[in-house]
């Protein structure tokens, strides 16, 4: 084990995979000498050169479109889009090319690429640089969708994503980049896609959360424990494939479900989880399901407004209290 930040863990994952497999390469805007807008690619260009750590022009459609072409022809691109709010730009390349290629060609082609994207709010970056857009991609069959909540998972999931044969949307929460955690040093440390983790066991209520909300939920759980409410916190880690069994088992045990997400509520992945449980686990529920999400509004700039906008430990705890 080694103490690494979430950002460092991601870099290590890329470095290990690039050393292991010469067909893996990185591309994106300012990922080279600049080291990435959030510093995640760091010094990779010094280690692997400009051929394998490619700075692109400002050209998101070509970044993703070319990643698809590269992946179809034997390479393993790890592409970075600088902010999740920019994912509308290469949306067609993700939706119509990366995701559907395997199906449309009857399984002849496949697209082993990873699309890394910083997402989420909390740094005053306003409406176009703070979005959570993962729900769109869960609605696109053919993609896998990953979202680590801590440094160890970040490493293990990114390595699995790079080795995966299908296109993977890999979301990283900006606020987490500086979170430090114990990270296994083995270069075969993999966290499988599709396996959730119970981040805290509890018997009274199930909270499902990903990314930064896992921290918020754990913090809320500590507070609530003092009040005698025993919270179970589940981090699915990958939204697609989703470890629905783990969620169902937990809800069966606790009888209560709260989903915490920084997404705007309407059309969120929080809604998808709620729908799954309302369909397959309704009779486990003693209480209505609760979604603690951002309101249906763009992300505001002012720090005061942004704080009011975002779910946090306090808001999660309050919502839990209402269920008891």
């Amino acid at each position, binding site marked *: 084990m080694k103490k690494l930040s979430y950002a460092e863990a991601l870099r290590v994952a890329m470095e290990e995979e690039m050393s292991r497999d010469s067909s893996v390469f990185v591309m994106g805007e300012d990922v080279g000498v600049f080291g990435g807008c959030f510093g995640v690619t760091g010094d990779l260009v010094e280690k692997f050169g400009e051929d394998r750590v490619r700075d692109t022009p400002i050209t998101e459609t070509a970044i993703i*479109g*070319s990643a698809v072409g590269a992946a179809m022809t*034997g390479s393993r691109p790890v592409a970075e889009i600088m902010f999740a709010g920019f994912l509308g730009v290469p949306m067609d390349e993700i939706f119509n090319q990366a995701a559907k290629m395997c199906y*449309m060609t009857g399984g002849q*082609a496949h697209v082993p690429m990873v699309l890394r994207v910083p997402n989420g709010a909390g740094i005053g970056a306003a409406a176009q640089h703070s979005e959570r857009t993962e729900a769109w991609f869960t609605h696109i069959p053919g993609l896998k969708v990953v979202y680590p909540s801590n440094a160890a998972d970040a490493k293990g999931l990114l390595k699995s994503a790079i080795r*995966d044969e299908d296109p993977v949307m890999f979301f990283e929460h900006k606020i987490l980049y500086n979170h430090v955690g114990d990270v296994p040093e083995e270069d075969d440390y993999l966290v499988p896609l599709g396996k959730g983790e119970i981040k805290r066991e509890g018997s009274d209520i199930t909270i499902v959360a990903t990314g930064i909300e896992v921290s918020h939920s754990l913090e809320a759980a500590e507070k609530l424990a003092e009040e005698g409410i025993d919270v179970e916190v589940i981090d699915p880690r990958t939204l697609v494939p989703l470890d629905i069994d783990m969620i169902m088992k937990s809800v069966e045990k606790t009888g209560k479900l709260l989903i915490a997400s920084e997404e705007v509520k309407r059309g969120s992945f929080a809604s998808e989880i709620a729908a799954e449980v309302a369909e397959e686990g309704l009779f486990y529920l003693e209480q209505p399901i609760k979604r603690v999400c951002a309101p249906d509004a763009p992300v505001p700039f002012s720090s005061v407004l942004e704080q009011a906008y975002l779910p946090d430990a306090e808001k999660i705890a309050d919502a839990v209290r209402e269920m008891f």
Partner: protein
Amino acid sequence: MKESNEELVGLLEKMLVIREFETTVQKHFAEGEIPGFVHLYLGEEAVGVGACSALGEEDFITSTHRGHGHLLARGGDIKKMMAEIFGKATGYNKGKGGSMHIADVNLGILGANGIVGAGLPIAAGSGVSAQILGKESVTVCFFGDGASNRGTFHEAINMASVWNLPVVFVCENNMYGISMPQYRADGRKGQNIKDVSDRAVAYGISGVTVDGNDVMAVREAVVEAVKKARADGGPSLVECKTYRHRGHFEGDPTVYRSDEELEQWKKKDPIDRFVKVLKDQEMLDDEGYKELRDKVRGQIDEALQFAQDSPEPDVSEVTTDVYYGGAE
């Protein structure tokens, strides 16, 4: 470059295969045997055949919604193609893709594509792979005049240029994108320049315009561009002026163009022209031509029969191939 007799007659044969294939598809689409949309390549055969003749086995192509001709020119299996267009289990894509999505990945055909302009960044990526994997492959990217107005054209060619990628961008300028003229002095137009190849300047690459109904002219320009790309000379843009004999898709009443215009272009039919060249050079006589055509027709008939006789896909196929590594 001096081509052998066989090579030249081979080009004609490929064009005839496309001509007969498309004519057959046209007929059976009209009879309701083929679902969805069909965009025929009739009249444009010289572009696909000339360009693909410049490629070797390790090379790649990306294609378009009007892709049958590219796949056939690259040597695609006629039976599997016909079966795919009929939506049968024996088709290239098991009936899941259809006319707009036929691919033969083993032949380096990275798929027809229903999204206009989508092939350009994919071709750039194929070029990146050549650099990453240290291969000498070149990728030919087909796209239309209409596609050259999409942002993907701009972004992909710019990327190819700054990274010196081994890609040849072949614009099939058939004068229209559906009902929109590529250029006209007055009125509606897709762009304000006569030659799409003028756009090469914007990327610092070379651009040429050739007669797209002259298979040898296309071949020559693409051979040149491929040679350059293979020698690490980077991408080029080759515009081929041509014309589609049919409507945009089958069923298009073509109100946006005149019968005279069509007639003018039919006089420049790429097959008739090339037959004449071969005959003038005494590489082919009437009898030889008839034999060739009969042979091709026989192949197409066989493919048609194969497609018609093939089974429908099993409904369990609806949810397979969503992921390559198997199910989620």
